[in-house]
Each structure stands twice: as C-alpha cells, then as structure tokens.
C-alpha cells in the first residue's frame, strides 16, 4: 500500500498535502492521506493492520491454501496425526486437516464480524442520532433504553438468547448484535450533540432541509469515523464472544470449522494431542489481537497522538 501511494512521485504527495485544496475531492483525499501518514508511524497499529489484511487474504484464498475437501472429509485412518508435510498443523479426531479447517474457519469469523457490524451500526445510529438531534423527551426515552441494554452482562444475555433461539451461527450473530449496539448509540448521540448547534447545520435548516436530510447528509458522515474506530476496537470482543459461544456449542454447529468449536472438540484429546485444541485457539487470539492493535492505532491517529 505504501509503495503505490508514495511511489507515484512527489507530485501526488504534494497534491494530497496541499494546504489549499482546489476541489472537494482533493480536500477529502488529502485528509485521508494525512490520517494514513499519522497511522503509519504507529508500529503496533501497522502490525494490527497486517494481521487483519492477512486474515482477509487467508479467508479469500482458503481454497488455494488448502483443498476444501480435506477440511470436511473424514479420513479415519489419518486421525490425530501430528504435524507432517501432508498436514502441517496435524489432523483432528476425524482425520480432517487442521490447517485447512483453520483457513476456512477464517471465513466464518469474518462473516460473523461483518454481520454483527451490519446490524449493530444501523441500530446504534437509529437510536443515537435522533436522541442527540432532537433532545428532550426523545433523548430521555432512547437513552434510558440504551442504559438498560448497557447494564446487561453481554455473554450471559447472548447465552440466554442463543438458548431460546437455538444453537447456530445466525442466532449467535443476532444474540451478539442485540447486546453490542448500546455503545454506538451513545457515541452517535454524543457526536450529534456536539455538532447540533453548528452554523453549517443552521445554514442547512435555513435552506429548508428536512430533519431527516440534515441527519443523513450532514451528521452521519461526521459520526462515521468515531463509529468505525469503536467498531474496530469492538471486533476483538465480538470475535471472543462468538468463539466462546462456539466453544460452548451454541455457535456454529459441527462439522463447520468454527475456531471456538474446534477448540472445544480438541479438549477431549488435549493431553495427548495438544495441537488439536491449541492451534485454533492461537488463531482466535492472533485475530482479536490484530483488531485490538489496529483499533488502538486508529484511535491514536484520530486523536493526533501519532
């Protein structure tokens, strides 16, 4: 990424960093470039970015890394093999290749993370924006609702939901999303309140823009950066909760290669074949560490502490 941007010569860099941008596009691209420069200085943040990019690459290229059939087909004579050229991470209790399963498991993890984000952000914005924009009793009611959900223990509630809706990856996503939205509502409210009295909002109001239009075109874009940073920091928690549900048998169901479920099945042979349980766990750990590092780096870059 660095090579394409800075390698294009000093002219592009100068154009991006121009203190007096000539167009809206130049200003916007320049803003992103400055943020990137600030972020780039953060080594740990860059490590996090590399981990997340690697995860996406592994998920996208899973069929290239490993034969899809070895992830699911049971080869009982090959069960519980230690590391070898044919199976770098060994095989599990049904003779399936653990590396292949971990690669395909990356897809499940990313899917969960993506689906939760797609549910959580709109709910958070839908609650937080009107609360901050209109204030008064709307604010009081919506925030009281948010407080109620905020005071719930997340994993326990997700457990109860998963128990009621039945085990499965979709229900795990719904359960996590239902307990994860309140911080976004608070964030959107706080951001909205700081902008509500701004002159550009008053200008839009004087031009006759409707409330909905002002919220959608003026306020939402201003909220998004902090929402994205918060989301990145939350990813680790979402991944850990999903893996925890999988470990308890309430997330993705067998034979799906979900990492938490893989750790759970490896428990039975932990003492003799340690790799079956520990390797998928390392994948969970590195992935959530990657999102934590990336989120920390983004937050530092945004707050100007390079």
């Amino acid at each position, binding site marked *: 990424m660095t090579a394409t941007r800075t390698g294009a010569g000093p002219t592009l860099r100068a154009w991006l960093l121009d203190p007096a941008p000539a167009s809206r596009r130049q200003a916007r691209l320049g803003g992103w470039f400055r943020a990137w420069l600030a972020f780039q200085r953060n080594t740990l943040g860059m490590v996090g970015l590399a981990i997340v990019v690697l995860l996406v690459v592994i998920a996208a290229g899973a069929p290239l890394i490993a034969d899809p059939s070895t992830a699911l087909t049971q080869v009982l004579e090959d069960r519980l093999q230690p590391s070898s050229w044919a199976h770098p991470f060994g095989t599990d209790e049904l003779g399936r290749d653990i590396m292949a399963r971990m690669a395909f498991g990356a897809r499940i993890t990313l899917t969960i993370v993506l689906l939760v984000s797609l549910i959580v952000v709109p709910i958070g914005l839908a609650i937080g924006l009107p609360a901050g924009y209109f204030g008064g009793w709307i604010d009081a009611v919506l925030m009281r609702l948010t407080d109620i959900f905020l005071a719930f223990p997340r994993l326990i509630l997700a457990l109860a939901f998963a*128990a009621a809706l039945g085990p499965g990856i979709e229900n795990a996503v719904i359960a996590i999303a239902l307990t994860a939205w309140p911080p976004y509502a608070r964030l959107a409210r706080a951001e909205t309140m700081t902008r509500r009295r701004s002159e550009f909002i008053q200008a839009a109001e004087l031009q006759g823009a409707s409330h909905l239009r002002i919220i959608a075109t003026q306020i939402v874009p201003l909220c998004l950066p902090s929402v994205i940073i918060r989301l990145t920091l939350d990813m680790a928690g979402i991944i850990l909760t999903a893996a925890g549900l999988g470990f308890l048998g309430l997330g993705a169901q067998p034979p799906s290669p979900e990492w938490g479920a893989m750790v759970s099945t490896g428990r039975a042979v932990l003492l003799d074949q340690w790799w079956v349980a520990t390797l998928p766990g390392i994948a969970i750990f590195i992935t959530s560490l990657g999102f934590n590092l990336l989120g920390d780096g983004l937050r530092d870059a945004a707050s100007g502490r390079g």
Partner: protein
Amino acid sequence: MARRLAAPLRRLGGVVFSVILTFLGLTAVTFVIGRFMPIDPVISIVGDKASTEVYDRVYKELGLDQPVVVQYATYLSKVVRGEFGNSVMTARPVLEDVWRVFPATMELASLALIIGVLVGVPMGVIAATNRGRVVDQIVRFMSLLGYSMPVFWLGLVGLLLFYAKLGWVEGPGRLDVAFDDMVPTITGLITIDAILAGEDEVFFNALGHLILPASILGYLSLAYIARMTRSFMLAQLEQEYILAALAKGLSPWRVVWVHALGNVWVQLITVVALTFGSLLEGAVLTETVFAWPGLGLYMKNSLFAADLNAVLGATLLIGTIYIFLNMLSDIVYTLVDPRAREPS
C-alpha cells in the same frame, strides 16, 4: 445543610430509579426469551400424548390465556418473590440450586479480582510514571494480550502446561475426591471453610485447584484494571498539587503512591465493580474448562438440558448482581468524591 444534601439525594434518587428501570428491562427480556423458546411450555409439562382437555386446563393454569401484560405482571411478581420455578434437571427450585452453586463462583471470582487488583493497580501506576518508556509499552502490550485472549483457550493451555506437564497445580474441579465432605460447609467457600475447620491439607488442596482458574480470570481483569489505573494516574500526575508536593521536597515515591494514587481510588472503585461483573461472565467459560461446579457450569449444563427455568433464573441472578454492582459504584462514587456531589 439541607441544600448541601439535596443534590446528592437527587442523584441517589436518579440512580435508584434507573436501577428499577433496568431491572424491569432485564425481566422483560427474560420474559420475552421465555416466550420465544420453540418449546411449548404446556407440552413440556403434560407430554405430547395428553388429551385436549388436559392440555387446555394446564394452558389456563399457566395463565397463557391471559393478555401478555398480565402474564408479565404475574411473572414479575414471582421473580420479585424469588420464584423462578423448578429446575427440570434437578427437580429442585431454581433459587435453591443457584444458592448452592453460587459460592463456588464467588470463591473463583473473588480471588481473581484480588489478583487483578494487586497486580493490575501497581502495573498501571508504574506505566503512568514511566509514560512512553519501555515499561509503559510492556504494560500496554500485556493488557492488549489480556484483552485478546480467549479465556477458554488460556484455561486449556494452562491445564496442559501447569497441571499435565509441570504438575504445579491440581486438576479440574474444586477438591480431590479424597477430601470431599471433610470440612463442614459454613461459608461455601472451601478455602475459608477449611481454615475455619483447621484442616490444612484440605485448604492447600482446595487452593491448588483454585489458583490456576483464578489466575487466568485474574489476568483478564488485570488488563482492564491496569489500563484504567494508568489513564487515571496520568490525569493526576498532570495536576499542580503534584508539582507543589515535589517542590515541598516530598519523595517522588511518596507523591506517586500516596498522594496521586490516593486520589485515584475513588475512580478505581467503579472499575473494580464493573470488573467483578465481567468476572461473573468470564466464569461461564472458565468453569466449563475447569469443571468448576459454580453458577457458570450450572447455566451451561441447564442450557443443554433445555432447562429454561434454570437458564433464565441464572441469567436474572447474574444480571441483577451486575446492575447492583453498577448502582453500588455509582453511589460510592457520589458519597466519596465531593466533586460528584456538586449539581451539574
């Protein structure tokens, strides 16, 4: 005097009001979950071979013909009186079951919290006083590791390493079978009961079982406590009174650990209370890994037995403790910190 008390009283009133609302919300959620359940509650009682008349009678007895609001009110009045129904699995009242297993969780979570505070607070203080230096980076990275670690996996690795390979700690469970029922149950916390009974051997066995799961849970709480301590301390160290104390000739050690840390305790109370809540949650996974017969394992087993009464009872109990801890930290904060008493 009356005017000085008015603001905190109003604040306390607000806290209590929001606690009641949150509790109502919590019961509403468990009530909805109870109705969501794809199991017909009538059939689970009478069986699917029952005649229509029997079915209809039980349907009425359970109040399912009433409007939803009335059903919720009935449910709420039962919950307040501690009637969560009987557990299908153990055939005992859920509340009785929960009280029986709760001390095990308390013992685990309390030791974890003690470890978290005793290690996390000094770590945060040291990080803050060495801001930007290597020590600070190490503390920051260690907290990040804690935030990123799947607790169930850490538990398994810990068992593999410290129990199976090194033999430093005892295995899963709370006590070796040989020591079962050797000390009378007084507090339900085996380590304390063993001390009270004067049984050294039982105490050390129980501690050997307890230390690994508690350390693992403690490490997770330590991550949060260290991070928050660091940021609270940084805010204090920037204050002018620190400069004044140093100028007066006090030793830097005293200024940091007595003066600055002394002002941070109030904020830390909130953090510790919230940590305790999250430890109760983490207990579900840890107890599963360590076969620890506490609330978490009870809840997990009930889940797979489709024992809805038990699951919702445990959810309500943990949720209520969670809400209560939130309230407690709010109130303590108001009482201890004069700044929080001023009307905003």
